[in-house]
């Protein structure tokens, strides 16, 4: 309980301390959220340019002019990097985790508020350094978000591999540092600062998901940080960690003895857990929302917790499935493949339990619920293409084709984003004291669900037909020509989907100022954030420390006066 004493700080008065260099986890959470919002707009815009270039490679765009093949690859790199780091990692964990976790466990703030503030500002600097790569000579790097060496290690390997690539690596290294600080804070807060009665097994599944995500972050980002530093050394002071003897354009590179596969091992040792860093919080939110809006306890709470823990554990043993075609030992492919298939089991448990939660519920279709249902659908669709890619024999035709982006966009891209949308609609009333507009939310939901399926399901067909990833145009290989109409359809679908996001943006900002005033518990939910004022006061519970008596999802308890029993209700002490 030492941490609980030490973190307490008086409410700041000045604007700067209150909204800019704030120590309040709620303000920091919003800062992360709005950082992610700007990042997702950039990332989305880049993807639009990519989709246009693939199908109309000679099109000249207003203001931007022609897109050259190397520009296209810069877009690929920056779209992937910005989305993975500054959106999918930042919004669910840094944003919602920061804002909601302390309130849900009944704590007045995070364990280390200064570290929290530092973590955000480091993330912001990392983001600005990343964006700066666009504006230096040579532009942003073209080596993709995975930055495979030697392409990423040699300045002469292509445009963008000069200062742009250095900025890219520096940004990622800074992001790793920020994430490590955040991870420590989340873990300590969860372990040390829970209110009386909030045993681990009474924590909402959202808290479990943030906690496990933080552990993954702590173990994964350190490895990426080291790899990034080694890459910087290779690029700038002539070491050869990742570069063997070789030439570029007939010129000796001056390196020898390094291993390109070492980069891949280090990168994917981070990269695979990163997938779960992106999706676990979405699973937590989906569970929370499905239970709340089904008016039913979550189906198999313990199974959900153990499933997330095993996904986290197995997530560290499967990185090699990204490398079946890389030249690593074919025998190890066997082991990685079995472990990868094993991850399907906890994932199937989760799906089964979400369906079990809906079964015999009494479903309310408000915006958070729509997105949680969409999450389940996308999780199923994106998840089931996994067992194809997990088999090395099937990776022979499928690896590095459009099948792979189809798979991971559905699951770690769109499903995770649906988690973020569900969280936004769900906690918006608590954060801003107003409701978002339901009608606009429904329009946003249906267009986004159908639109994203129209963009990403066809990628599986393209991959089957052999369309490689990261091709800036399909003109050179004749067997790709017949795929152009389908690619055009995807571009149109992308335009519609992106337009639907404008509806969300309008709804978000309009509702902040003009939305209907929200009550303290508009969804009739049970967890602690709904017991406090809307928006919550500086210390979350206005000097009062909550005591927890019940499990997190006590809905429709027979004999209870209402169809929900709050975690802090002493009246009905249930078994959980």
């Amino acid at each position, binding site marked *: 309980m030492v941490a609980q004493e030490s973190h307490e700080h008086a409410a700041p008065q000045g604007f700067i301390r209150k909204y800019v260099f704030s120590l309040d986890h709620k303000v920091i959470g919003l800062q992360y959220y709005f950082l992610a919002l700007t990042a997702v707009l950039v990332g989305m815009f880049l993807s639009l340019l990519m989709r246009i270039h693939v199908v109309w490679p000679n099109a000249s765009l207003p203001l931007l002019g022609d897109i050259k093949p190397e520009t296209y690859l810069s877009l690929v790199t920056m779209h992937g990097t910005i989305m993975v780091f500054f959106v999918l990692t930042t919004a669910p964990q840094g944003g919602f985790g920061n804002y909601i976790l302390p309130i849900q466990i009944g704590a007045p703030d995070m364990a280390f508020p200064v570290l929290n503030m530092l973590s955000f500002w480091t993330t912001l600097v990392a983001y600005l350094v990343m964006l700066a790569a666009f504006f230096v000579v040579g532009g942003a790097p073209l080596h993709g978000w995975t930055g495979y060496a030697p392409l990423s290690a040699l300045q002469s390997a292509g445009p963008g591999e000069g200062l742009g690539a250095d900025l890219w690596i520096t940004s990622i290294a800074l992001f790793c540092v920020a994430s490590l600080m955040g991870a420590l804070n989340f873990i300590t807060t969860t372990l040390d600062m829970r209110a009386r009665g909030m045993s681990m097994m009474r924590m909402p599944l959202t808290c479990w998901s943030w906690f496990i995500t933080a552990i993954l972050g702590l173990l994964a980002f350190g490895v990426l940080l080291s790899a990034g530093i080694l890459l910087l050394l290779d690029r700038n002071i002539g070491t050869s960690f990742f570069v063997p003897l070789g*030439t570029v354009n007939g010129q000796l590179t001056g390196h020898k003895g390094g291993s390109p596969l070492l980069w891949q091992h280090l990168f994917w040792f981070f990269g695979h857990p990163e997938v779960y860093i992106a999706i676990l919080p979405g699973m937590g939110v989906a569970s929370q929302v499905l239970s709340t809006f089904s008016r039913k306890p979550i189906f198999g709470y313990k199974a959900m917790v153990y499933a997330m823990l095993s996904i986290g554990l197995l997530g560290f043993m499967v990185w090699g499935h990204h490398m079946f075609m890389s030249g690593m030992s074919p025998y190890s*492919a066997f082991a990685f493949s079995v472990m990868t298939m*094993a991850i399907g089991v906890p994932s199937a448990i989760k799906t089964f339990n979400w369906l079990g939660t809906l079964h015999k519920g009494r479903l309310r279709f408000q915006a958070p619920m729509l997105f949680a249902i969409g999450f389940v659908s996308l999780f199923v669709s994106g998840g089931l293409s996994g067992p194809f890619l997990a*088999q090395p024999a*099937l990776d022979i035709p499928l690896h590095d084709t459009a099948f792979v982006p189809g798979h991971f966009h559905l699951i770690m891209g769109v499903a995770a984003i649906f988690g973020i949308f569900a969280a936004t609609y769900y906690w918006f009333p608590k954060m801003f004291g107003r409701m978002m507009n339901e009608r606009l939310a429904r329009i946003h939901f249906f267009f986004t669900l159908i639109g994203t399926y129209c963009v990403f399901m066809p990628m599986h067909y393209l991959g089957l037909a*052999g369309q490689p990833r990261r091709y800036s145009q399909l003109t050179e290989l004749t067997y790709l020509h017949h795929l152009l109409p389908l690619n055009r359809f995807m571009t149109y679908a992308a335009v519609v989907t992106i337009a639907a996001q404008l509806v969300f943006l309008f709804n978000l900002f309009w509702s902040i100022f003009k939305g209907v005033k929200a009550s303290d518990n508009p969804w009739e939910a049970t967890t602690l954030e709904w017991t406090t004022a809307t928006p919550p006061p500086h210390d979350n519970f206005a000097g009062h420390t909550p005591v927890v008596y019940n499990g997190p999802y006590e809905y429709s308890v027979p004999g209870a006066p209402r169809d929900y029993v709050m975690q802090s209700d002493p009246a009905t002490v249930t078994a959980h």
Partner: protein
Amino acid sequence: MGLLLLCVIWLITIASTYFFIAKTWWLPAGASASAAAIDHQFAVTFVLMGVIFVAAQMALGYFVWKYRDRASANNASYSHGNLKLEIIWTTLTLILFIGLNLIGGPIWAAERFRPAADEATRVEVTGIQFAWYFRYPGPDGKFATTKPELEDPSAGGEAALGLDPSDPASKDDVVTGIMVVPVGREVEVILRAHDVIHSFFVPSMRFKQDAVPGLAIHVHFTPTETGSYEIACAELCGLGHYKMHGILKVVSQSEFDQWLVAHEAEKQ
């Protein structure tokens, strides 16, 4: 709203599944010995995953409609789950996923665990930004030494590979811009890259392997149909990645022999 959700989820499911079953966009016709096994494993995986996909999405749509909140709806049931169902479901998925994996294992083993047969046609394939080079060892059966400091891609051919003319084995090495192999005989590919990682991808052969600087990766495949097949690069290798392509010609043994002899003669 429940009905709308049901319709949308079911429609997405039906449309997605339809294009897989109709094979509107599909694997190109296989032309190698391993194509049948790989395609079969794909089909098995597709049927199993397809059934789960349709069942899960249909159930989702149905539950959403069936249990929607309305005046006549029953109260939600107060249940924390069902351990027995959970165990059954977990065991089933474990058997399914691991079983599927084990079925596919031998295919992978056949592709990658055993070395190429002794009588295989040997071709060294080298990826250099942004072209594929093919080298045949000639009658002596030996690939001559290559040296990085001699590599000159602007000169093309042997010079691009940095072939060392002082090595006697270099006299009969043939370097070409297209890959020609005889039908019905195993091809041993020795994959190299000079600059960055490339990936040698021949969709019709169901064949793919990264070419990594510093490594010589030995892999093999057996073409079973004569014809001309496109080779793509499947690993991002720089600005010309999309146009790094080549041609694989599968011809009869006699045509292959003639072709090779002609190239030998050209060289002398």
